[in-house]
């Protein structure tokens, strides 16, 4: 078959009246659509605006909006506003936090617990990530990682409940200890900071494991071999090479876990006791009672968010300084 340009020009005329067009052909030659498309693509600027307006409005109103509204409510004396009542601007909600030491314990407890639990999570998951990234063949790696992911698909409440069963007075741990005759009466693990820690570490381990794993995986093996070649022992190699090179993963993992830990509500309620009340419970209290305490709750939430942000920012600063110090 030869290529005949003149024959095609005749056919071009037939195409004009084609009635069996495909969907896309019909759409693109449909007059209203053409008009719209021409309008929308008239200039790169207009095209960009059409694409950008909705996302920008969305993030402003839906992502930033709730936080700003919470901040606004925290600075008023009444919310929701009852009819006939005037709303006033006030700092009282913030002052009530600083004025009453009853709130300080749960506040500092939350931050300290979150810090301690974050550290525990780091210590527990680092060797696991290290093992996966450095000692497992790439083929098996995904399988072993997937094995760890499965429990993390299960929800917060279900996993918290599982810890309750594990640590209860008639739970598995006590049963095993008693079976071996190590104890006569059950150890009361539950409703302590210990049970809370076990639960929170359980819930957050994955968020630490994944950043650690990816930073360890990026680390070239040859670097350790070079250090060994220069006579560095295993501990020196870890301290001088592996640890500094994975500070980035440690930093992002810890930030994430810390922020998540400060925000738990159900887990402390279920696993903790009266001596372990966290600030999340305090905040929630203002929203449960019938009284008009939302502004105070909002102010407390703002205080906690700012405190958590300040701590993570300081932590990241420290990590960056450490990283820079090592490259010098």
């Amino acid at each position, binding site marked *: 078959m030869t290529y005949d340009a003149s024959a095609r020009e005749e056919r071009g005329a037939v195409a004009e009246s*084609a009635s069996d067009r495909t969907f896309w052909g019909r759409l693109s030659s449909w007059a209203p659509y053409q008009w719209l498309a021409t309008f929308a693509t008239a200039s790169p600027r207009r095209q960009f605006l059409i694409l950008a307006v909705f996302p920008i409005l969305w993030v402003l109103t839906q992502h930033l909006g709730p936080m700003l509204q919470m901040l606004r409510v925290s600075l008023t004396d009444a919310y929701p506003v009852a009819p006939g009542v005037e709303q006033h601007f006030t700092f009282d909600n913030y002052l009530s936090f600083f004025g009453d030491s009853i709130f300080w314990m749960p506040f500092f407890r939350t931050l300290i617990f979150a810090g301690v639990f974050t550290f525990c999570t780091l210590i527990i998951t680092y060797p696991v990530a290290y093992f996966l990234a450095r000692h497992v063949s790439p083929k098996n790696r995904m399988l072993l990682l997937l094995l760890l992911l499965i429990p993390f698909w299960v929800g917060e409440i279900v996993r918290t409940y599982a810890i309750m069963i594990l640590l209860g007075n008639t739970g598995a741990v006590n049963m095993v200890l008693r079976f071996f005759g190590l104890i006569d009466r059950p150890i009361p693990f539950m409703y302590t900071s210990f049970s809370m820690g076990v639960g929170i570490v359980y819930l957050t381990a994955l968020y630490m494991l994944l950043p650690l794993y990816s930073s360890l995986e990026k680390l070239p093996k040859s670097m350790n071999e070079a250090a060994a070649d220069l006579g560095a022992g295993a501990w020196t190699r870890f301290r001088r090479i592996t640890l500094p090179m994975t500070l980035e993963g440690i930093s992002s993992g810890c930030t994430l876990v810390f922020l998540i830990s400060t925000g738990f509500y159900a887990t402390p309620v279920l696993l903790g006791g009266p001596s372990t009340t966290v600030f999340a419970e305090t905040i929630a209290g203002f929203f449960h009672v019938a009284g008009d305490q939302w502004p105070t709750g909002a102010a407390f939430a703002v205080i906690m968010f700012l405190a958590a942000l300040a701590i993570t920012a300081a932590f990241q600063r420290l990590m960056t300084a450490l990283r820079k110090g090592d490259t010098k």
Partner: protein
Amino acid sequence: MSSDPLVRLEGVTKRFGDTVALDNLTLDIAQGEFVTFLGPSGCGKSTTLRILGGFEQPTSGRVLLRGDDVTKRPPEKRNVNMVFQDYALFPHMTVRQNIGFGLELKGMGKSEIAKRQDEIMSFLELTAYGDRYPAQLSGGQRQRVALARALAPDPALLLLDEPLGALDAKLRGQVQQELKSIQRRTNKTFFFVTHDQEEALTMSDRIVVMNKGHVEQDGTPEELYFHPASRFVAEFIGETNLLTGELRGTEGNAVVMDWFGNTLRGHAPGGVPQAGEAITASVRLERLGFHAERPTTANAVQGRVVGKTFLGSRMALDLMVEEANGATLKAYVDADTGQSVGEAPVWIGWDESSMAVLRD
């Protein structure tokens, strides 16, 4: 149709920030031409192609297609199609669907599309692969599908962005022939962009050599090869001997130069340089002839063979010309010629038309 050229670029300039990618380019392309834009990366050849395709808008200047100003028209509204460097075949569509994509959007009917798909696939010997996906094809086949997809909507101008770069050397030679023959048979205008001078010489009707955003020279492959206008063209296309000397003056069409005391006569395709300046001339390696006696050619010097390299089809000789301050020349001769390395002097001669005095 009027007497308008198919494509006309009028003073097209493109700036990216502070860098000028294209500097006031003015150029006409006639219907049915195979034009190649040749140059190193960053010379502005790809920018020209993307402006023609509608992917970039010139900072100033106009682009006319058959007399219509299409400068601001988006790619989908131009009767111009492109073969991409990486082919850009749609991975989730079969060969047939890839070819049909442009036809559908032209508003053709299904039976019409099927006919055209069959036609173009048989033309490019793709009929057997219609139901395959791009991932199931070889590099050469993919290249043909990209060509078929771009030719199917019957564009006025076909743009080709280094489409042979991804092929291996052996296949490339074959595809060059194919492309040239397809261009002849379809009588389409091809706008080809490459950095490979050999590719450009093999296929083109016309080559535009670009450097730093402007045109160095615009001509047929023969013109560019034997009559380079500038040092850049002489060096970029093929191998050459560059002779640096001083301009003496002109005698009719001939340009006379002094080369370390030897008077040489050449021609100046790029225009005669200012008198008294240091100038450069180019003589292609295969244009040097060897003689036992002083030859009657316009230029003749005596030299010695100081080295030779066997290249298969021919032999490369290294020559030293003592009477020109020990300057060296290179020459290609038949592989079985008896020139041997040694002390014996030999006459080297070349014509006035073989030596191009360069601009710059």
